[in-house]
C-alpha cells in the first residue's frame, strides 16, 4: 500500500500548494470588504474538473499497483512472460499521445488541416492500441496463461483491462466532442477539449509505462524493497 499512500501524499502536497496560494492564512474576521478575487485568477472550470478526474484515476491505478506489489512474490506467484506485442503496443500509445498533442498545438495555431490529420492519427492509433491489447490477451491465453491460471496472469488482464477501459472512455469523450462541434476543430470548445484529451492521453501513457514495467517483471527490485521495508 506504500505506492497508494505515496500517491495520496503527492496529491496532498499539490492541494497544499493550491490552498496556500489561495491564502489559507487569511483572517476573514478582520477583513471585510470586496475581495480582489477575479475571474482571471481562476483556471477554466473544465480544467479543474480534468485535474480531479486524473487524481481519481491515479488513485485507482496506484491501488492496483499496490495490490500487485503486495501480491507479487507470494509462493504461488508466477510472472507470465509478457507478450512481445506489448512493445509494439507501447509504441502505438506513444504515437497516439504525440498525435493528440500535435493536434492540440496545431489547433491552437489555427492550422485546421494539420490538426485534423494529427487528431485522426491519434484516434486511430488509440483504437489500434486497444485492438492490439486484445490480441495480446489472446496470445497470453494461447500460451496457457488464462485469467484463472495464475494470479500473475490475472493481474495482467486486470491492469490492461482497466487501462484499456479508461482509454476507451477517452475515445468516447473525443467522439462526443467531435460530434458536438461538428468537426469544427478550431472552435473554442473543440480546441479546449482536444487539449484536455491530449492531457488525459499523456496521463494514461504515463500510467501504461508503469504498468508495462511491472508486467515485464522489472518491478522485482521494488517488490524486494517493499518487502524489506515490511
Amino acid at each position, binding site marked *: 500500500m506504500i505506492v497508494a499512500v505515496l500517491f495520496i501524499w503527492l496529491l496532498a502536497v499539490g492541494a497544499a500548494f493550491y490552498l496556500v496560494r489561495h491564502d489559507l492564512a487569511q483572517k*476573514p474576521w478582520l477583513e471585510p*470588504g470586496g475581495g480582489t478575487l477575479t475571474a482571471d485568477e481562476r483556471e477554466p472550470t473544465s480544467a479543474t474538473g480534468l485535474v480531479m*478526474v486524473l487524481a481519481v484515476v491515479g488513485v485507482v491505478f496506484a491501488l492496483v499497483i499496490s495490490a500487485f506489489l503486495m501480491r507479487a512474490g507470494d509462493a504461488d506467484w508466477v510472472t507470465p512472460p509478457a507478450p512481445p506485442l506489448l512493445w509494439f503496443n507501447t509504441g502505438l500509445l506513444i504515437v497516439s499521445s504525440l498525435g493528440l498533442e500535435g493536434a492540440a498545438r496545431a489547433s491552437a495555431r489555427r492550422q485546421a488541416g494539420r490538426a485534423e490529420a494529427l487528431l485522426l492519427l491519434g484516434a486511430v492509433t488509440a483504437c489500434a492500441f486497444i485492438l492490439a491489447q486484445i490480441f495480446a490477451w489472446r496470445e497470453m491465453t494461447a500460451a496457457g496463461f488464462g485469467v484463472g491460471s495464475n494470479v500473475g496472469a490475472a493481474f495482467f488482464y486486470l491492469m490492461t483491462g482497466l487501462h484499456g477501459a479508461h482509454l476507451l472512455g477517452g475515445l468516447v469523450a473525443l467522439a462526443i466532442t467531435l460530434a458536438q462541434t461538428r468537426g469544427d476543430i478550431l472552435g473554442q470548445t473543440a480546441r479546449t477539449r482536444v487539449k484536455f484529451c491530449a492531457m488525459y492521453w499523456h496521463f494514461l501513457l504515463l500510467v501504461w509505462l508503469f504498468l508495462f514495467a511491472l508486467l515485464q517483471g522489472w518491478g522485482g527490485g521494488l517488490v524486494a524493497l517493499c518487502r524489506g521495508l515490511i
Partner: protein
Amino acid sequence: MVEVRAGEEGFHPDDFEDEEVPHPRSWWTKYVFSQDAKVVALQYAGTAIFVGFIALVMSWLMRIQLAFPGALSFIDQDHYYQFITMHGMMMVVYVLTAVFLGGFGNYLIPLMIGARDMAFPFINMLSYWFYLLAVLILLSGFFLPGGPTGAGWTLYPPQALLQGTPGSQYGIVVMFASLCVFIAGFTMGGLNYVVTVLQLRAPGMTMMRLPMTIWGLFIATIMALLAFPGLFVASLMMLCDRLLGTSFFMPAIVQNGEQLAHVGGSPILYQHLFWFFGHPEVYIVAVPAFGIVADLLSTHARKNLFGYRMMVWATIAIGVLSFVVWGHHMFISGMNPLFGFFFATSTLIIAIPTAIKVYNWIFTIWRGDIHLNVPMLYSLSFIVTFVVGGLSGLFLGNVAVDVPLNSTYFVVAHFHMVMGIAPLLVIFGAIYHWFPLISGRMMNEKLALAHFWITFLGTYAMFFTMHYLGVLGVPRRYYELGQTAFIPPSVTSLNIFITVLALIVGAAQLVLVYNFIRSWRHGEVAARNPWRATTLEWQTPDMPPPHDNWGPQAPKVYRWAYDYSVPGAPRDYIPQNQPEARA
C-alpha cells in the same frame, strides 16, 4: 491577502460573467430528470431516507432476535447475518454518505457559495440516477435465490465467497456490482461538488470566507473521491475471484473434502484495500457533520465561530491523516507489531485536530446567546454523543486494548455512537434548520421536541450501555448467546432494555416523517431568514430559492460567515452579502 476596500464596491463590474443555467421545459425535466441541484438533492435525500428505513427495520429484527431469541421464527442464522450485512452497508454507504454529500451537498453548496447551480449540471443529474440504479441493484439481492449476502458489512474473503455463507451464489455478486455503480455515480457527483466550490464561488467569496458547512462538504468529497477507489478496486477483484476464478484474495481452501480452484490468494490484501476506503469513510460521514454543527452552533448561539482558521486547518488535517490510519481496523489480522505501532500512533494523532474542533464548538457557545431551539438541541446532543464515541475510539486505537475488546460489543457501541448516531443527530438538526429554506414553512416545534428527546435519550441509553456489554466480553456477530458461563444474567436484561429502546426510537422516526409531510403543506409560513443567519442561502430573493437561486442579480460577498453580535451593528447579524455594517 484580500484587499480591504470597506465602504466601496471593491469589485470590477465585469469580473464574473453570469452562468447560464439550463431551464426545464417540461414537468419531467423539472421534477424527475432535473438538472437543478436542489431537486437532485431532494431526490438523493428522499431515496437515502427510504433505504434508511429498510436498514432500520433490519436493525429491529436483529435486536428482537438478540433480546428474545427465537421469538420471531422466521429469523434464522442466515437471515440474521443478512440483516447485519445489509444494515451496515446500507447505513454507511447508501444512507449516510448519500444524505450528506448527495443531499446536503447538492442543496447547500451552490446556495452557500453564491452559485446558480453545480459546475456540470447534467453529470450531476446522472450521478443521482446511477445512485438510484445502485440502490435497485442492491435491493434486488432480496429477491434472488439465496437472498442478499450475509458476509458481514466488510465482505471479507474468503468466507464472503464460500458456500455456506448466505447469498454466496448471487447476493455477493449484486452487492459488489451495486457498489461499483454507486462509486461511479458518486464520482460524478463528487467531481461536481469539488469543482463547484473551487470555481463558482461568488465574487468576494474567498476560500477563507466559506462557511464551515462548505468546508466540511468540500473536504469530505475530496476524501471520498480518493478513498472510494479502494472499495472499487477491491470490489472488482472480488468479482473476478467470484466470477472468473482468479485468486487475488482467495487462498487454497478445502471445502467439504473438496479442493477449491483458488490458490494462494491474500485475504489480508482485501482488508488493506477495503480499509483504505473504510477508514476515510468514517470521516467522509463525520466531516460534513462537523461543518454543519459549527454553523448551527454559531447561528443559534448568536456568536461568531471560535477559531475559524483553526477549524479549517483541523478539517484539512483530518482529511489528510485519515488516509494513514486504516491499519487500526486490522490490529488482530496478524500484522507486524511495528505496523501496529505506526497505526496506533497515527490514530492517536488524528485525535488532536478532532479535539481542536470539539473545544472550538464549546468555546463558540461559551457565553453565547444560546437559543435552545431544535437545531441547537441536536447540535448540543451531537457534541455529547461524539465526545463519548470519540473517547471510546481512543481505547480501541491502542493495540493492547483493542485486541481483547475487538470482537465484543464495545466496538459496536463505539462506532454506532461516533459514526452512526452522532452524524444522524446532525442530519436531524440540519433538517430542522434548513426545512424553512426548502419548503418556505416552519416545522411543528412540539413534535420536533418530542422527536428530539426520544431520539437523543433513547440512542444514548442504547449505545452507552452497550459499552458495558463489551467490557463484560459479550461477543459481537453472534446470532444467539445461549448458555455461556461468563455471561451474567444482567446481559440478558440489558439486551432487552436496548431492544425496547431501539423499537421506541425507531418508531419515533415516524414523528419526523409525519412532521415533515404535514409541515410541508400546512406548517406555519416561515419568515424570511427565520434564524437570522448570515450565510448566503438565506439571502435568496425568494424562499424557497428559485430555479437559478438568485434571480436577476447574483450575490457579492463582503465578509465571512460569522458576523453575529458585532459590536455597534444595529442588528445581531450581518449577512455575508451586506457591504456595510449598518443597514
